[in-house]
Structures are given as structure tokens and as C-alpha cells.
């Protein structure tokens, strides 16, 4: 592209972050740094049963033997793990059962973010679990859901009320030995959501967790576990934001999904952690391990993600396709603007016969952003007649950004077919001129073109999320504030 249109695009892609406010709220912290004492402190604070402390300590000891991975296409400033506060909680009133007992500052924060915690506003038809810093603030709709036998609550509450389920499934898809950040999370995770859909139940509403980092110098380590029993169905959404700060903050989460025979789980994420400023100062380091297992035959897990935030994103939501005829899907839009870096993709592990997977990845780079797709498709010897289709597209806005593709493909039998397609394109001056000639200004034109490019992924999102995601995509590339 010529320098003129690069200049235009550069100007309009210098967006500002509009969720960067800080809530002034009394917070309780763990001492800075991490030792066995920190791990015990967290477990004690949460009044956990013995098996939890044991799990955490094993994970911590394992973590000590590991080193931070370096294989990703990312430039990461050294992280001082002793300088992080591993547990921060809004100081609680004794009992949060009723909404009017939730701190009004907290309610105001979530309202500001467009998240209604007031169950009266049932019109939205979305059940929300709101997690601020390390603690779940409020889960809405739990009572309605319990009529169906559905459990939707914070992870901490599940540990107290459903320890058997937690014991059975926690770490069964992402063991603490999985990787460096999974081990760290397993040692210090604070809260998150738990969701259990019993046999044959279709969850009647969208479930959603909203994560918010508020306190400074604090890491957020949340953990989500979703179990769908035979023939169950659930659609789950996750959103995240953080205040604007000069230092980098660490976020290392784990999501585990278990889908039994004939079950289906749809997991959608709109990730909008603070991306850092235009010069690359600050921003969230987002190291996430997300994995699902299709345990029974005909199970299906689908991941949809719209990643616009974080200064560094490192995540590869994947599926282990164990059951015969099971299906794994991954749809992703990742935006890197200014100095953001993303190394993201998917892992599809085919173990069962006739298993199918699809990967649609759309990278968008602007400014000095670096965007890598990294994906593994592995078809084992016994996974006969399996299929994968991967499509990885990159869109470049401007000339200083980068897009990279690292596909790894291993096929262990002859009856399976794996296809991989990759394209790289730019927004052309022709396209911009065409839009502008119709009265559409450059910013809106880029928004339109980018949303068109990402359409295949956006249409996978639940309605409630799709509109927000579309706006976010435009905003994260435009100069508009608010």
C-alpha cells in the first residue's frame, strides 16, 4: 500500500481504551510475592478443604521446577513473580447472598461496564457471574437455574458446596503439569466460575462470567470449569476488562470443559483487557490455558474468541476429541494494535474415530502490532476417517505491523484428511476510496471492512455478544474514545 493510505490508517488506528477507570474500593491483599506460605494463605482465606490445599501445593512445587516458555513469537519483558500480589479481594461484608448487600461501588463498577447484576433486569436473559480481582462478586439467576438442576456459581462456592464434582473434574483436562502458567494458576488461583449441566438438560439461558482486574500490582488467576453431562447443552460467554495502568499486570487463567456423550458446549470470549498505551507502556500479560475434552461419542465443543485487549496474548484453546464422531471448533479474531502482541491459535487432538475439527482464525494487525497464529492438529493412529479444516487469514493495516503463521500438523493414519489454508491481505486504498466516495469516513470504513473480514467468526457469537464484539473491533482500531 502507498504511504498516503498507510498514514491515514495509522492515524485512525491509534485508539484509546475506554474501560480504563479504577474503582476506589477497600481491598484486602495477600503479602507480595509467592512462597508456600502464600499458597497456604490463599487456601486458608478461602476456607478450603484439605484436598484443595494439597492440589495447590503440588502445583506450586511443580511450578518451582519449571521455567517460563520461550517458544512463542513474543517479546516479553522479564516477569518478576516475587513482585506480584497473588490475592486481592474487595473487602467483603459478611454475607453476599442478597444483591443489596453487595458494595454499591462494586455494583456501580459493573454497571459502568454495562454488566447488570440486578436480577430484576431479567430482560437480558443472561445469567452473570462477576469476578472482581480475585473474588466472585455476585452470580445472578442461580436460583432460576437450580430448578433445572443446573449449577452455576463461583468456583469458591462450588468448592464448598460441591467438593465431589470439583475433586472429580478439576485438573482433569488441564493438569497442573501442563505448562508453566497452568502450574502457577493451579497453585494460586483465586476464583472463577463453575458450571454443571445435568444429563439431558439444555440450559435455557446464556451463562456469562465477567472478569475485572481492579487492584494495582495484582495478578488475576481465575479458573473456570464447565461440565456437560450426557445430552446436555450450554452456551457460555466470558468478558474481561481492566483499568489503565503503567505497569504490566499478569493474568493467567485456566478454563476446562468436559462434554460427555451427545453433549454440546459453546464457549465464547470477548477479551478486552487493557492493551497498554500507544507507546506500549502497561497492559495485561494474558497467559491462558483453555481446553475441552469431548469425552463421549458425538460430543461437541466450540470455542469462539474475539481478542482485542492485552499487551501480550498467549492462548491456544483446544479440544481433545476422545469420543467417536466428536466435533471440535475454534473461531478466532485477534486484533493487535500499537505495540500489542498476540500468539494465539488452537490445538485439536483427534483420538476417536470420525472426529471432526475446524479452525477459523482471523488475525488483524495495525500500528506496530505483531500477530501470530500457532496451531496444532494431531490425528492419532486410531482416529480413522477424521477431518480437519484450518483457515488462517491475516489482515494488515499499515506497514509496521506483522503477521505470522505457525501450523503444526501430524496425521497418524491414511484415512484422515487435514487441510490448511492461509491468506494475508491488506485493506486497499481502493476499498477505502470506494467507501469514502459513498460518504463514509475513514474510521467507519475501516470498521466496516474489518467487521466484514471477521464476519465468519462474529456470526458464531451469541446475539448478546455479537453487537458488543462488532463495536469493540471497530473501536480497538479507531481513534474514537467512548
Amino acid at each position, binding site marked *: 500500500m502507498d504511504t498516503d493510505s498507510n498514514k491515514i490508517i495509522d492515524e485512525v488506528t491509534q485508539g484509546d481504551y475506554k474501560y480504563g477507570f479504577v474503582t476506589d474500593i477497600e481491598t484486602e491483599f495477600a503479602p507480595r510475592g509467592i512462597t508456600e506460605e502464600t499458597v497456604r494463605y490463599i487456601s486458608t482465606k478461602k476456607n478450603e478443604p484439605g484436598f484443595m490445599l494439597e492440589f495447590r501445593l503440588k502445583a506450586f512445587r511443580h511450578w518451582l521446577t519449571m521455567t517460563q516458555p520461550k517458544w512463542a513469537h513474543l517479546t516479553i519483558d522479564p516477569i518478576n513473580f516475587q513482585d506480584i500480589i497473588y490475592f486481592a479481594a474487595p473487602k467483603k461484608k459478611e454475607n453476599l447472598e442478597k444483591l443489596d448487600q453487595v458494595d454499591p461501588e462494586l455494583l456501580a463498577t459493573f454497571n459502568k461496564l454495562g454488566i447488570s447484576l440486578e436480577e430484576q433486569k431479567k430482560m437480558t436473559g443472561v445469567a452473570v457471574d462477576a469476578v472482581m480481582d480475585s473474588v466472585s462478586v455476585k452470580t445472578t439467576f442461580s436460583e432460576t437455574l437450580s430448578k433445572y438442576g443446573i449449577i452455576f456459581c463461583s468456583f469458591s462456592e462450588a468448592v464448598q458446596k460441591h467438593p465431589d464434582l470439583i475433586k472429580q473434574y478439576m485438573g482433569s483436562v488441564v493438569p497442573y503439569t501442563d505448562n508453566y502458567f497452568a502450574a502457577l494458576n493451579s497453585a494460586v488461583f483465586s476464583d472463577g466460575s463453575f458450571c454443571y449441566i445435568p444429563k439431558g438438560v439444555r440450559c435455557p439461558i446464556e451463562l456469562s462470567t465477567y472478569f475485572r482486574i481492579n487492584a494495582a500490582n495484582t495478578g488475576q488467576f481465575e479458573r473456570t470449569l464447565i461440565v456437560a453431562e450426557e445430552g446436555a447443552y450450554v452456551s457460555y460467554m466470558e468478558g474481561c476488562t481492566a483499568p489503565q495502568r503503567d505497569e504490566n499486570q499478569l493474568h493467567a487463567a485456566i478454563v476446562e470443559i468436559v462434554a460427555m456423550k451427545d453433549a454440546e458446549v459453546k464457549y465464547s470470549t470477548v477479551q478486552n483487557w487493557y492493551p497498554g498505551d500507544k507507546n506500549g507502556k502497561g497492559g495485561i500479560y494474558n497467559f491462558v490455558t483453555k481446553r475441552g475434552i469431548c469425552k463421549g461419542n458425538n460430543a461437541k465443543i466450540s470455542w469462539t474468541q474475539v481478542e482485542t485487549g492485552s499487551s501480550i496474548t498467549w492462548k491456544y484453546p483446544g479440544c481433545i476429541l476422545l469420543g467417536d464422531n466428536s466435533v471440535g471448533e475454534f473461531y478466532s479474531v485477534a486484533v493487535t494494535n500499537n505495540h500489542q502482541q498476540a500468539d494465539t491459535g488452537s490445538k485439536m487432538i483427534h483420538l476417536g474415530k470420525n472426529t471432526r475439527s475446524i479452525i477459523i482464525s482471523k488475525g488483524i494487525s495495525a500500528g506496530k502490532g505483531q500477530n501470530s497464529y500457532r496451531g496444532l492438529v494431531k490425528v492419532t493412529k486410531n482416529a480413522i476417517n477424521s477431518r480437519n479444516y484450518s483457515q488462517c487469514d491475516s489482515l494488515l493495516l499499515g506497514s509496521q505491523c506483522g503477521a505470522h503463521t505457525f501450523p503444526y500438523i501430524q496425521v497418524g493414519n491414511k484415512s484422515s484428511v487435514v487441510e490448511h489454508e492461509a491468506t494475508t491481505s491488506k485493506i486497499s486504498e481502493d476499498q477505502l476510496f470506494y467507501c469514502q466516495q459513498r460518504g*463514509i469516513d475513514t474510521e467507519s470504513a475501516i470498521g466496516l471492512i474489518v467487521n466484514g473480514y471477521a464476519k465468519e467468526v462474529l456470526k458464531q457469537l451469541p446475539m448478546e455478544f455479537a453487537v458488543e464484539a462488532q463495536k469493540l473491533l471497530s473501536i480497538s482500531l479507531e481513534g474514537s474514545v467512548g
Partner: protein
Amino acid sequence: MLLSIKNLHASINGKEILKGVNLEVNNGEIHAIMGPNGTGKSTLASVIAGRDVFETTSGEILYKGKNLQKLSIEERACEGIFLGFQYPVEIPGVSMTNFMRTAVNEIRKYKGLDALSGSEFIKLMEEKKKLVEITSNLTNRSVNEGFSGGEKKKNEIFQMAMLEPMLAILDETDSGLDIDALRIVANGVNKLRRPDNAFVVITHYQRLLDYIVPDFVHVLYEGKIVKSGGKELALELEDRGYDWIKKELGE
């Protein structure tokens, strides 16, 4: 006067393409611009629309008496300048409906009008589709994506109908059309004709001018309008080609 171009010089990458164009267009008129390939017809259209890859080195363009120099591409569009593209671009994933709704509402915003609601917009779109005889579901498809040559050109006319410009410049909208499509394009223009608007039709072919009768015909040659006349000039060009004009110019 709607448009007045005086001694316009424009270049791209230091290469001069327009070398002193003069043109005056009044409200209610239809002008045809003809001329061999590569003489600057599309460039002239782009420069009027404000495309910034071209640099205006001297001369001026007055539109409704105002100098266009300071207006951006989209401001010119909002002021009523429409360009029917010789090569309409594809915008994957963006539906025509969404594209047009954005355009219509941006222009309304510029004029200080409220945005059209979803249903008002659909009604307008159906009306205009009928007007320009578009029966297919072009509007559900992505902008120009996978459109045939003829569909792309009809789509330009449809957009013109939607945006109701004051000055429409149609760049070879007739090229590559069969006779039915040609008639549809021409009818579109004739139906949209009003005493206060004007059309500049760039074409190679006299046959379009059987349907759209021009008030003036101009020949653009090597970056200048070298001859102007009435509709008979088009017939003469069809008959004799451009060589006699070159001779007249002493080449």
C-alpha cells in the same frame, strides 16, 4: 452553475495526467466525455471525487460555487458528488444492505437529519431496487463480491439511486453490458434525472447515448478537453474514430 473546472492540472507520482482541463456543467444537463484509453477520463473523475493519490498541481474545481480543494472525499460525497466506478471494488463480508445503510445515514448525519430506522431503510431500498429494475437479491450479498461485470455496474446505478446525488459521474458504466443491462442502466439515469441535478457520463460507445441523450459531448485527449460539441459529435466519433481529431491538433 453546478460544476466549473478551470485549467486543472493533476499528477500521480510526479507524472502529469491532466494537463489543463476546462469544463462547465449546469444543473439539469447531461455531459458525455469520450476519448481513447489512457487519456485521463478516470483520473478526472477521481480528482473531482477527491481521491488523494492524485495531486492537483494547479487550477481549481468549483462545485456549487465552492472550491472543492479543502473538502475530503466523504465531504464531497455528502455534498452530492457521486462516482459510478469503472472497476467497483469488492468488500468481502460487508453486505450491500449494511454498506448502503451506513452510507445513507452518514450522509443524513452530514445534512443534520436523523438516521433512518431499520424499517424505513428497507422500504427505501425496496423502492430504489424497483426503480432501477434490480430483481435479484444483490442487496443480501457482500459488496460486489462474486458479482458479474453486469451486476457490478447495475449495483453502481442502484447506489446512485439510493444516494440521490446532485452530480453523478458515471465512468464507463456501459462497458461490457449486454443490451438489456445497458437499457436498465440508461433507464436508471433517465428516471433519476431532475432539473437540479446533472450527469457526466464517460463512455466509449455511441450506443449508450441513444438512451441517455447528452446535451454536450467532450473529447478528452492526452489530459485536455480538445473538442466539445452537441450529441452529433458522438456520432461523428463513432463513424470516424479519433484520428481526425489528432490531425486537427496537428499530430
